[in-house]
């Protein structure tokens, strides 16, 4: 199981509370986790990554194991702790706005 934490607006949009649990993946990456997230919750398409290009939206960050992994390659394996479900994959709205 892969555990994902979404920011408040996306939890509301997806109609979920707390963490989201996705099926375990053999070699999870940012891309495969986000693909699975969007497949499970199609309403999130376009809100984390742009349609078509799958480019991360500017004010979205990804954290795991206390580290900002936003700029890691999208196909780079996530830490083992995320793959095992011991740690969460966190989608964060950047500090901006008012």
């Amino acid at each position, binding site marked *: 199981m892969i555990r994902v934490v979404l920011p408040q607006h996306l939890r509301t949009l997806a109609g979920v509370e707390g963490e989201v649990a996705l099926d375990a993946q053999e070699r999870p990456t940012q891309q495969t986790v986000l693909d699975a997230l969007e497949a499970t919750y199609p309403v999130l398409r376009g*809100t984390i990554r742009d*349609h078509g290009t799958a480019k991360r939206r500017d004010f979205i960050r990804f954290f795991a194991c206390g580290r900002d992994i936003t700029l890691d390659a999208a196909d780079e394996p996530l830490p083992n702790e995320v793959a095992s479900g011991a740690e969460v994959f966190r989608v964060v709205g950047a500090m901006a706005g008012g």
Partner: protein
Amino acid sequence: MSGVRLLVGTRKGAFVLTSDGTRDEWDVNGPLFAGWEMYHLNGSPVDPDRLYASQSTGWHGQVIQRSDDGGKTWETVGNEFAYDGVPGTHQWYDGTQHPWEFARVWHLEPSPTDADTVYAGVEDAAIFRSTDAGQTWHELSGLREHESGDQWQPGAGGLCLHTILINPHDPNRITVAISAAGVFRSDDGGETWRPANKGLRSRELPDEEREVGHCVHRIAMNPSRPDTLFMQKHWHVMRSDDGGDSWAKVSGNLPSDFGFPIAVHPHEPETVYVVPIKSDSEHVPPDGKLRVYRSQTGGNEWEALTNGLPQEHCYVNVLRDAMSVDALDPGGVYFGTTGGQVYASPDGGDNWTAIVRDLPAVLSVEAQTLP
């Protein structure tokens, strides 16, 4: 008795205000979609319970919501606004070319004949149409691909397509307005477009009367006379009696002819409303007095409407999509301010009351007349 539903979009959510035909007492429901920028909500003229809403934030981009029960429940529908083909470039603030990039939906205009068909005006400027109640969107790319497209330049609020008028007698005639490109009209359902800016003059342009580049803030029409259009431009209030083929200035005795919204009385096609603000550099009412100006002569002769509006220390603005009229008799007029007030006049502007006073900054107000 029939009633009125106001769809109010704000910087931090949406509100639905309802009243019976007296328009004395109002129920306020909201915030819906709390925390999101709600640029516009609009209802279908065919089915008043069919509503569409544009929801966005800088973090998460664009979402479109649809309601089939007058706003009691909402369903998220399609949010993919993909420009047709390779979108090319338009002019950037510094005069260089800049790629066309989708930012948000400014305006939703449901079809006058089909509740499942709705048009979206977006930033960077383009018009999209959905014929499946918002599930999928397709660009009417003849507009963006007009030969003048690379000369279009964003206004201070972005390169936004903010006005969509559909001729109720001929739905193939669509008129749109873009800041800062101007007015464009299609007579073939959105396939081909041509500029409709003859008579506009903008001293911000090196050639003041050029065919495109004018910062049109808003156009309005009375559905019974769709060839007569009224425009609030960056400066100047204008009118056209030939569907936008030519325009004439009707600012007349207004204290300032700078402003954003403009509306036409529901039953009197020569009665027009504007809310003047001081200037392009001071977006506040002149003298701290919030005054709606009404012309009952189709422009040029304007009177200040002040009864019930603050006449001292008032420095709010009324944005381009934040004024609307109902179709009751007598006709009602409504507007929302950047200070969060929504004002209603059930008697065509003679008297005003604040329905609510402390909402987030109001971006849009649409009045629905309920059966």
